[in-house]
C-alpha cells in the first residue's frame, strides 16, 4: 500500500465564508444562552415537567454522534481494516469536535452555568451524570492521545493499544449517556436497560452518517478524490447500523407493550401522541430508518455518492427525531402517581404536558452544532488530518483491483 500523504485544507473564500457563517450561529447560541441565563428559563418552552428541552435534544445528539464518528478510526485500528486507516485522523478530530459542541450546549443550558466549577469539583459518584462528566472529559483526553499517536510517527507503535482503549471508552461513554435515561425509575418511557445498547446503536448510526456527510463535503470542496469503493462499503455499514437502531427500537417498544403497566406510554408514543407519534413513525422509522436502508442497498437507484449523502442526511434527521421523541415525548407523558387512577392537579398531574421549543433553545442547539463544525474545519485547516487522496487505488489497492476486474 502506498504511503498515505496528509495535507491541511487550503485557503479559499469559501473557507472564510463557511467560518463566518458558523461564527454567526455560534454567536446566536451564545446570545441565546445569555438571554436564558439573564431572564431565567421562563423564556424557553421548558417547564417543571418537561425539564429538558431542545438544548438537550441537540446536546444528546451531538454527544452520541461524537462517540459514533470514531467508528471509522476504530474499524481501522481495532479491527485492522487497512482501508479505513487513512480516515482515522479525521474520525478522531470529529469525535472531539462533536463532543465539545454537545457539552457546550449542555453546560450553557444549566440553570447556573456560572457554577460549572462546582460540577467539576463536587461529585456524587452514585450519579450516572457525575460519571458522565468523567467519561466525557476522559474521552477528549483519550481521543487526543489517539490522534497524537497516529500523527506522531515515533509513537505509531502505540496506535493499536490506544485505539483499543478509545474503543472501549466510547462504548462505556455511550452506555453512560443511554443510562441517563435507562436508570430513571420514575418515568414510564425510560427505566429500561435497553437504553444503553440502543444508544450505542444510535451512536454508530448517527456518527457514521455525520462522518460520511462531512467527508463527502470536504472532499468535494477540496477537490480530493474519494473512491466509490470505500464509500460503498461505508454506506453498507451505515445501512447495518440504521437497521440495528430499528432493531433496538422495536425491542424497546415491544418489551413495553408486553407489560400492561407500560401500555399507556406506548399508546401515547405509538398511536395517540400527536407530534411524537408523527415524529416516531414518519421521521424516525420511515424517513430515518427504512428509506436510508433502502437507498443504501439499492445500487441501481443512482450514483453511490448521491445515495450515501442522501441516506446519511436522512439518518441524521431521523436521529434528531428519535432523540426528540425519547427526551421530550418521554417527559410529556405524565408520571404515574396512582396507577390505574385518573389524576388531576394544579401541577398538571395526570395530563400530557405541552412543550413547544422556543427560538433561544433552537439557536443554542444550532450554536453547538456550529461550534462542532467550526472546530472540525479549523482543525482540518491547521493540522494534517485528511489525506490528499482517498481514491480506492490508494486506500485499498487490493480491493480496487479485484472489483475493477469483476466489473
Amino acid at each position, binding site marked *: 500500500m502506498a504511503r498515505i500523504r496528509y495535507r491541511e485544507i487550503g485557503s479559499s473564500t469559501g473557507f472564510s465564508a463557511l467560518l463566518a457563517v458558523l461564527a454567526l450561529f455560534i454567536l446566536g447560541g451564545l446570545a441565546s444562552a445569555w438571554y436564558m*441565563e439573564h*431572564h*431565567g*428559563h*421562563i423564556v424557553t418552552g*421548558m*417547564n*417543571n*415537567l418537561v*425539564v*429538558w428541552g431542545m438544548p438537550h435534544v441537540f446536546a444528546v445528539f451531538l454527544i452520541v454522534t461524537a462517540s459514533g464518528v470514531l467508528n471509522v478510526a476504530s474499524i481501522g485500528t481495532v479491527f485492522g481494516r487497512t482501508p479505513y486507516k487513512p480516515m482515522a485522523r479525521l474520525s478522531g478530530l470529529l469525535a472531539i469536535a462533536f463532543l465539545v459542541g454537545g457539552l457546550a450546549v449542555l453546560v450553557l443550558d*444549566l*440553570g*447556573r*452555568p456560572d*457554577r*460549572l466549577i*462546582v*460540577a467539576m469539583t*463536587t*461529585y*456524587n459518584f*452514585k*450519579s*450516572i*451524570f*457525575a460519571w*458522565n*462528566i468523567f467519561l466525557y472529559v476522559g474521552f477528549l483526553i483519550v481521543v487526543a492521545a489517539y490522534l497524537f499517536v497516529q500523527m506522531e510517527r515515533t509513537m505509531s507503535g502505540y496506535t493499536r493499544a490506544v485505539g483499543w482503549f478509545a474503543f472501549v471508552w466510547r462504548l462505556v461513554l455511550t452506555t453512560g449517556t443511554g443510562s*441517563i435515561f435507562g*436508570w*430513571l*425509575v*420514575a*418515568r414510564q418511557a425510560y427505566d429500561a436497560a435497553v437504553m444503553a445498547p440502543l444508544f450505542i446503536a444510535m451512536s454508530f448510526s448517527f456518527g457514521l452518517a455525520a462522518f460520511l456527510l462531512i467527508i463527502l463535503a470536504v472532499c468535494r470542496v477540496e477537490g480530493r478524490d474519494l473512491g466509490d469503493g470505500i464509500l460503498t462499503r461505508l454506506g453498507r455499514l451505515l445501512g447495518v447500523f440504521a437497521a440495528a437502531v430499528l432493531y433496538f427500537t422495536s425491542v424497546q417498544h415491544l418489551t413495553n407493550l408486553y407489560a400492561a403497566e407500560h401500555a399507556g406510554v406506548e399508546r401515547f408514543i405509538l398511536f395517540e401522541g400527536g407530534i411524537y407519534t408523527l415524529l416516531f413513525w414518519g421521521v424516525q422509522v420511515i424517513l430515518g430508518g427504512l428509506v436510508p436502508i433502502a437507498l443504501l442497498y439499492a445500487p441501481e437507484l443512482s450514483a453511490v455518492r448521491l445515495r450515501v449523502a442522501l441516506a446519511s442526511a436522512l439518518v441524521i434527521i431521523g436521529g434528531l427525531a428519535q432523540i426528540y421523541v425519547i427526551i421530550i415525548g418521554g*417527559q410529556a407523558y405524565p*408520571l*404515574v*402517581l*396512582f*396507577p*390505574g*387512577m*385518573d*389524576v*388531576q*392537579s*394544579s*401541577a*398538571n*398531574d395526570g395530563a400530557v*404536558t*405541552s412543550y413547544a421549543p422556543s427560538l433561544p433553545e433552537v439557536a443554542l442547539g444550532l450554536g453547538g452544532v456550529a461550534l462542532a463544525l467550526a472546530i472540525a474545519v479549523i482543525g482540518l485547516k491547521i493540522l494534517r488530518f485528511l489525506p490528499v487522496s482517498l481514491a480506492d487505488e490508494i486506500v485499498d489497492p487490493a480491493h480496487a483491483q479485484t472489483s475493477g476486474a469483476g466489473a
Partner: protein
Amino acid sequence: MTRRMEFHVPQHEKRGFEAAGVDRRDLLRGLVAGAGLTLASGVTLYAVGGVAEARAPGDPVSPEVRWGMLIDVNKCPDGCKACVTACSKENGWAETGSSLTDAQWIRKVEVTDPRTKTSRALPVMCQHCAEPPCVDVCPTGASFKRDDGIVLVDKHTCIGCRYCMMACPYNARSFIHEPLSDQKPHAPRGKGTVESCTLCVHRVDEGRSPACVEACHADGGGAMLFGDLNDPDSEISKRIAEYATQQIRGDLGTDPGVHYQNL
C-alpha cells in the same frame, strides 16, 4: 423568657417544650391540653409528642430521628387548600397562574377511580423518601438527605441541571424559572436552581411543626400529622402501627416519609 415562665418550662430546657424527654413531654401534654380547653377542638396535641430528644442549636441533626408525616385523606376536605396557602406564605412562593412553570412545593391532587367515579383529594409534596431517586442522580450531591430524613437541595451546589426533576416519581420538585427578590430570610430560593418542600426544616430545627400541618389543624380538616417515624411512642408511629397506611408509589421502594391513611 416571660413566655417560658407562663408555660412553666424549666430553665434548663434548651429547645422549647416539645423537644423534651418523655416525662417532660407528658407534663407538657397536660399543660397544652389544659390550654386546649379554651380552644376549638382538634387543635391540641399535634405539635407535641413527635420529638425524640432535645437538640441544642449547635448540635447536628441526629440519624436517630426520621421525620415523617401522616395524612388522613378522609379528613382532607375537597377544595380545602389551607396547607398549600400556608406553605406558600411560609416559604414565599406563589402561584402566578402559569401552572407549568410556577413553584408548587405542595399541591392538592384529585384522584378519581375511573370505574366507580369516586374521587378523593389529597396534598402531595416532596415525599422525603428514605431512598430518594433525586439524591441518587444529582451529579454534585446538591440533592441530599439530612440525617433526620429530610430531603433538601443545597442550593449552593445546585447547578440547575434538573436531573433530579427527571428522577422524582412524585413531580415534587420545581425549577425556579425567573429571578426572585425579597425571599423569606429562612427560605432562600433563587433563579436557576431546583427546590421542593423542605418539610419546613427551619421550623423543625426550632422544634416546631411544618406550616402546612399547623394550618391543616387551624383552618383545614386536621388531616396532617407530623412526627418522628423512628420513635415508637410518637403519635405518628402509633397511628401507622394501628391503621393501614399507604405510601405513594410504594412499589418503587423509595420508602417515602409521607404516609397516607384512607387513600
